């Protein structure tokens, strides 16, 4: 920092860079990386009795940190060295996380492409497919249908309940709101197997309902409802209070205000909440495992008979010793992931806006209406 400013000093003052990367940092880190690579290779592969790629990477990374510290210490003072090291550690963590997800998605996509590349995977069920049948027979149509039906039913149950609970917490509140919020928090982290066990104990063992897609959708409801509630509550809170007051001032009652003002204003966020809940629900395995039963055939009726779904399909076939069965499981995993990705992308796409913020098309429509009625009307948007 240059000192207190006179007019002359002010001109020569330079903006202080607080973070960021310049040439020196890059060359320091690159040098440390190369040095560490050579050193690790020498020690790890040649001198010490060690082997294995994973261990090599760990040693290389640690060596890299030490060397970076050494090189940096030669040119900068201690504070900046610490800053650079933290930058390196934190950045590599971020890289690891991104790398993990890319690796995971990529690996499942590559392994799954083999079976998913055959059209019969999406048009047949597994009824006539034996363990050693070739990949051109059998598919996951029954699982896709089952997954969609169970997800649809669970959404039907979870969404009204979840949004109503969210509206309760934010619009009515009172003494009960806080405990409800705490319980919802706890429910979000409910182990999924316990949800399955609960439905197994109540619906199937006590009420005597057969294992079916319906029972599975009830278990999914228990998992999805708190997610929807939490996400919905956050967006409903963002609705400006002035809108509510305007509605009350016009003489609207509370339920009219909520239905006509609060919920429509929060619509994009609510859709996001619902879609996120669905993305979570469609991949849940353990509740379905206990409640839906397994069948290799097609069963489009969720209310009677066992019904398979994608996670259950994967769980079942991945444990076969036959490579084609495993390939089918991977293809089902790919399908499931595409489904989750699609739901997730939808949520991001819709949820990008704040409550009350209009989409580009809505803004254009308003502009058109304004132009149609009054050419002198002031235009709000650019």
């Amino acid at each position, binding site marked *: 920092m240059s000192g207190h400013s006179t007019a002359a000093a002010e001109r020569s003052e330079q903006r202080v860079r*607080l*973070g960021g990367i310049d040439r020196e940092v890059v060359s320091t880190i690159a040098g440390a990386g190369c040095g560490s690579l050579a050193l690790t290779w020498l020690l790890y592969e040649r001198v010490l*009795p*060690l*082997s*294995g790629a*994973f*261990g090599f990477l760990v040693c290389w990374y640690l060596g890299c940190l030490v060397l970076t510290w050494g090189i940096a210490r030669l040119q900068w003072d201690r504070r900046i060295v610490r*800053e650079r090291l*933290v930058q390196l550690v*934190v*950045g590599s*963590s971020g890289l*690891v*996380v991104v790398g993990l997800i890319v*690796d*995971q*998605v990529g*690996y*499942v996509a590559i392994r799954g492409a083999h079976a998913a590349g055959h059209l019969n995977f999406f048009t047949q069920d597994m009824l006539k497919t034996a363990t050693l049948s070739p990949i051109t027979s059998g598919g996951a149509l029954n699982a896709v249908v089952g997954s969609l039906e169970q997800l649809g039913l669970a959404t039907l149950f979870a969404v009204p309940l979840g949004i*109503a609970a969210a509206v*309760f917490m934010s619009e*009515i*509140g009172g003494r009960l709101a806080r405990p*409800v919020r705490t*319980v919802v*928090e*706890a*429910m979000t*982290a*409910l*182990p*999924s*197997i*316990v*949800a399955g*066990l*609960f439905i*197994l*104990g*109540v619906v199937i063992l006590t009420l005597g309902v057969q294992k079916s897609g319906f029972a599975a959708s009830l278990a999914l409801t*228990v998992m999805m409802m*708190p997610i929807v*509630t939490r996400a919905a509550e956050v967006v409903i809170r963002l609705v400006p209070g002035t809108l509510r007051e305007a509605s009350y001032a016009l003489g609207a*009652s*509370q*339920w009219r205000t909520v239905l006509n003002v609060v919920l429509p204003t929060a619509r994009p966020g609510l859709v996001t909440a619902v879609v996120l809940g669905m993305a979570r629900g*469609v*991949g*849940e*395995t*353990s509740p379905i495992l*206990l409640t839906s039963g397994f069948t290799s055939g097609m069963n489009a009726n969720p209310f009677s008979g066992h019904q398979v779904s994608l*996670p259950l399909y994967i*769980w079942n076939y*991945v444990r076969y010793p036959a490579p084609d069965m*495993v390939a089918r499981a991977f293809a089902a*995993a790919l399908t499931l992931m595409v489904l*989750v*990705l699609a739901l997730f992308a939808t949520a991001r796409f819709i949820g990008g806006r704040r409550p009350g913020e209009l989409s580009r098309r809505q803004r254009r429509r308003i502009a058109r209406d304004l132009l149609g009625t009054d050419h002198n009307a002031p235009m709000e948007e650019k």
Partner: protein
Amino acid sequence: MTDTSAPPLTPSADPAGDVPRRITAPVSTGDRIFRGVLRAAGLSVFLIMGLIAFFLLYRGMQAFRATGWSFFTQQKWLTESGVFGIAAVLPDGIIIALVALVIAVPVALTAAVFVAEYAPYRVRGLLVSLVDLMAAIPSIVYGLWGLFFLQPRIVGFVRWLSMHPGQYIPFLKVRTGDIGTSYTSSPFIAGTVVSLMIIPIITSLSREVFSQAPQGEREAAYALGSTRWGMVRSVVLPFGRGGMIGAVMLGFGRAMGETIAVALIISPKFTVTTHILEDGANSISSLIALRFGESDPLSLSALMAAGLVLFALTLVVNMLAAVLIGRSRSGAATAD
């Protein structure tokens, strides 16, 4: 929001004797019904949680009666002969969760600092989406990836761990000899896979807390000549401490309850784990997933009882986490 449906009015004039007019908002029948419905929806979460506890207890009663207190001290799981307990599966599950935490916490917290503070502003949104996406990936996909991708690749490292550090650190020793199968299904590998599942949860929760750190204090730190790390250490981390602890505990709860990935990796055993790299592990949730097909009532009842213990444990952990997140300064801004 408060209880009243009408916004409060402030008295406009200021003569001394003026008393504010009492405002009573008449609640219409429609509103009364509306509030009733919403209140019922809000209370339904208590009902669901209560029913879960009640039915697990009700269904598990038979098992509790058959074993008594030895349910908590017996390691074996032989439901046919009535000798069973969770003394092995419960600690084993906790060990898997702890392994997962040891791996996940450093990575997740540093990644959260990166996303919230260090990442270039333009890619920050993308990173946030990626982490959230990682949290949304189904656990069975993690399980597949762990079983087919990670397991074969990590065995070399596990072998190295057991051969070299294992000579000096007892719990890393593998006593079954140096054959390929003595490394593959260990609590360590299961914990590694579970750690990948809780990394995104811890990352995204703590990133959110970090990003709420007050701007004014950040600028104050910079104005005092702090580097970015100095700012993070003196402003962001203290601000987010409660949130971080809460996020880690939530991750622990998730790791305890994780079923499918664990069940795919482990080979079940019923003794308490003392050497985390050795083959064989167990947890309550994977025990349930692998054994629920047994049809006799006592076996099912035993699983229900085990489920109840898991439920109670995760509930306590999660409630503690929620309280910690809520009590911390970081939560104060968002609570009510």
